């Protein structure tokens, strides 16, 4: 291992801003994307549930 301290690790030989800027945005994307997909799936599921409920009400009104 080439690091002798945490600050040396974070400094990345004076290029910390570039290295962590690259890794940070990468991490942000691969964390955010699954959350967005989960929301999308939940919205689709809720839409189906609401349509079923609406149809049940309409069917009840008819009978």
């Amino acid at each position, binding site marked *: 291992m080439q690091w002798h301290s945490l600050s040396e690790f974070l400094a990345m*030989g004076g*290029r910390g801003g*570039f290295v962590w800027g*690259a890794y940070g*945005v990468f991490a942000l994307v691969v964390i955010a994307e*699954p959350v967005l*997909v989960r929301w999308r799936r939940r919205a689709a*599921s809720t839409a189906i549930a609401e349509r079923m409920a609406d149809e049940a009400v309409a069917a009840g009104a008819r009978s």
Partner: protein
Amino acid sequence: MHAVNTTSATTATAPRLTWFTFASPANFHRLAGVLGPVCAVVAAAFALAGLWMAFFVAPTDAVQGEVYRIIFIHVPAAWLSMVLYVAMAFWAAIGWFLNARMAFILARAIAPTGALFTVLALWTGALWGRPTWGAWWVWDARLTSELILLFLYLGYMALVAAIDDTRRADKAGALLAIVGVVNVPIIYFSVVWWNTLHQGSSLTMGKEQHMASTMLVAMLLLTVAAWAYAFAIVFARARAIVLEREGDTAWARALVAASKKG
């Protein structure tokens, strides 16, 4: 007669596996629900191993110092941006020629992830270019063709979103995706065909490698992680799109009813 009856009895419980079993959105939804989480676990495991190699095992680069460590995510992102485009065009073509709904759904599910990996390839490249070349961006063949790839993804997504009729949107998008695939070999061979500021391939089959082996292993581990992540997220998004489109079917309604109860 007897044999036929037995077969139909078994298909009722477990669908018989054929090439088209998972062309059924219901079957795909179930399969992707299992495979997606498995891929996510694989992605996380390889990402942890790869990051550890990238920061604690791979040595400092003799020429570039520490900033070269961006390569470990830059190269996987760039590879995935191209591979996902080919995958998107492949499923778009299958959808086009076989008129398969599930293939169109896969093409749509791949596009946003492909676009994100393209953005990440450009972003990590810019942050690597500035300290090593002295420029965030140059209009050389590699960078420009990668930017065109981003526009192809965005164009595909805008086109399918703009057309209300799902089938027509799928077909129009498929045409765009298939035509745009010519850009992928242009990106890949740009560093060979033109004199670019961008360096040549990090990996060349059958050639002696010029990377330290620990660097290579770190890059390959993170590449596997990126592939597994892409599979996981595409499966998950495809499931969401299936639910969006299959809301009138009995199986989707039964599924939603069961999940709301539980």
